[in-house]
């Protein structure tokens, strides 16, 4: 009696199971038979980038979602973003990478910064998955035949572009006098200054590094150091590291009663600094990077895409623009790979070949990036490198120029 009931129950369960399997098979078979590709993404919610992660990842996700629904639909391809928090720690990247490779089989990795470079630089050529980053490179990873790339050149290249522009605007024909504020003991920071020193060595009639000072990462007061720079009468002071140093520099200049424009990068740019320092004190200072500023007229379409597709708490600003440009470069690379090998056959190798296959026109980048050309020599665009900058004019942050500023050729240092 009990056994009979149990048998009935068993039979019922079996039926349900069979129905579930059939249903899942049916759902699994997509009527459109689109190809799904994985991009693996490194994010960081606990380290130095935790604060901006929402806008960072939001920029990437919004761009990919838009592409999936428009161009991707036309091509029958969908991009899936597989996100991993790497805690900005190279050992976490190294620990997770093999399982990402075998599990997700990504055709591209969207990297975050130094930890990805450190652990993956040597592995990617063997694993045959290219990596595209959105942050600027440093000279230490400028090695040929790598599979790691960025939409941006090195920080030093970016600054060189602005310095070239400013040198051209000097009233008389003399080198631009540059002072640098940085920190010893952190390899990336020192590298930026070394690059600028190399620039001055290559073009001594255009640029001159008049003084380099070294301060704490979180300095309390650097008036002494700034006074040392100020003695050399610099035209600009370069502070590329973090917001705290920019603020300390600006305050020291104010204390000394001097007005020297400060040059910063994207991560410690004018918007960040303006949180603590009134914009009047920043009048005439610059932030320079190799993608278009968020308020640029040309990126309106990108901004609209972000605002339409963004589901995170992030906002459209410098960070979102940077990572949207990383995403759009990746997507255009995918498009080119599809056109070469077909929508169903894209592999990491195909993506790499697509990156190497010549110039990407500016028109494809929604105004975020200039025309880019990659080669085996360097992990960043090696054609004509161009940058854009923002500055503070009459108390407001504005684009420095509508046109892209060219970067003089800079050799490895």
């Amino acid at each position: 009696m009990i056994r009979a009931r149990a048998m009935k129950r068993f039979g019922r369960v079996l039926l349900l199971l069979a129905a579930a399997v059939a249903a899942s098979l049916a759902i699994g078979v997509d009527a459109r038979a689109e190809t799904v590709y994985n991009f693996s993404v490194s994010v960081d919610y606990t380290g130095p980038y935790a604060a901006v992660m929402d806008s960072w990842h939001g920029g990437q996700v919004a761009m990919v979602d838009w592409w999936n629904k428009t161009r991707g639909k036309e091509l029958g391809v969908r991009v899936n973003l597989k996100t991993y928090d790497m805690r900005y720690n190279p050992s976490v990247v190294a620990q997770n990478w093999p399982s990402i490779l075998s599990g997700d089989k990504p055709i591209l990795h969207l990297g975050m910064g130094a930890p990805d470079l450190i652990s993956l630089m040597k592995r990617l050529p063997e694993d045959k998955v290219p990596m595209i980053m959105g942050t600027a490179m440093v000279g230490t990873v400028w090695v040929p035949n790598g599979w790691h790339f960025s939409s941006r050149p090195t920080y030093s290249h970016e600054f060189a572009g602005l310095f070239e522009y400013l040198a051209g605007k000097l009233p008389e024909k003399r080198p631009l006098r540059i002072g640098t504020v940085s920190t010893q003991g952190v390899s990336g920071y020192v590298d930026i200054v070394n690059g600028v020193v190399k620039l001055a060595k290559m073009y001594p009639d255009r640029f001159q590094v008049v003084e380099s000072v070294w301060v704490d990462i979180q300095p309390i007061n650097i008036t002494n150091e700034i006074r040392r720079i100020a003695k050399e009468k610099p035209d600009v002071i370069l502070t590329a590291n973090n917001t705290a140093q920019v603020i300390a520099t600006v305050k020291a200049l104010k204390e000394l009663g001097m007005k020297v424009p400060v040059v910063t990068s994207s991560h410690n740019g004018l918007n960040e600094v303006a949180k603590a320092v009134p914009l009047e004190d920043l009048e005439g200072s610059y932030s320079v990077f190799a993608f278009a500023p968020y308020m640029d007229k040309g990126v309106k379409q990108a901004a609209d895409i972000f605002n339409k597709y963004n589901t995170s708490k992030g906002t459209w600003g410098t960070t979102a623009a940077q990572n949207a440009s990383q995403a759009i470069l990746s997507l255009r690379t995918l498009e080119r790979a599809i056109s070469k090998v077909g929508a169903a056959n894209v592999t990491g190798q195909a993506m790499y070949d697509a990156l190497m296959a010549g110039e990407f026109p500016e028109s494809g980048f929604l105004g975020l990036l200039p025309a880019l050309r990659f080669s085996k020599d360097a992990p960043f665009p090696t054609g004509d490198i161009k940058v854009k900058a923002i500055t503070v004019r009459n108390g407001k942050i504005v684009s420095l120029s509508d046109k892209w500023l060219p970067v003089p050729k800079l050799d490895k240092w």
Partner: protein
Amino acid sequence: MVDFLQIVLNGVLTGLVYGIVAMSFVVIYRASRIVNLAQGEVLLVGAYFLWTAIFGLHLPLVLGLVVALAACMGFGMILERTIFRPLIGQPAFSIVMASIGLMILLRGLIQVAWGAQDRQFPGILPGGALQVGEFLFNKALLIGAAATVLLVEALNWYFLHTDSGLRLAAVAEDHVTALSMGVSVPRAANIAWVLGVGLASVAAVIVLSGTILGLSVSAIGFRALPVALLGGLESVRGAPLAGVIIGVGEALASEYLDPLTNGAMSQVFPFLIMIGVLLIRPQGLFGWKIIERV
């Protein structure tokens, strides 16, 4: 000559900031023999309370300061009650480890409670500099220096010339003996933490006034350790003095030695001093000369 004096002057002002952070450390030790390696994080919590009071709750400046200070002191009491009271009488080792655990815990709690993004810190002290003759005095640091001197004298008077302060000296020497003498060690620890966290908040105001508040500010706690050691862990007057010495030393090293050593000296300098103090004169300049200190 003027330049040299200006460098020295800036070093003095910066050093006094180190001094007040070191003082918050010393006060806790002086009153309860608790070593708090997490002082940088405690300072950070104080700064975040202040931020919340002024930017989160939008209180007017003075009221915000008072509320934040009260919150800090309450926080100090909670720390003492939950973490350090059970460890009274334990070897110094356990207390050091507890403060390490506190460091990690606070770092996590701050990020959970306030998030990791940098935010603007209220500009409580005025910016800019005061020009006196040839010399420029950074206004915020100057006010901070004045406050430090006042606080030093007040605390010194408390510890040396009041009954309750003198009782604390017993606790600073040995918990168990003090208990057997009828001195309330928990009460002492309470006072220690309230004072210590309060001082840390004052230090936070001086350091952060008008700049960005972020998680990395806690690094100043470790820079104040050599100062506390040089001045002597039980000496309240010693902390600012040691701060001045190290601040001036750092400034001179930055000016004259940095170009030679590629920027190394000014950052390494305080730690080299610390090692020197530990090996040569462990009680620091003004600490108690205990026979078996090390």
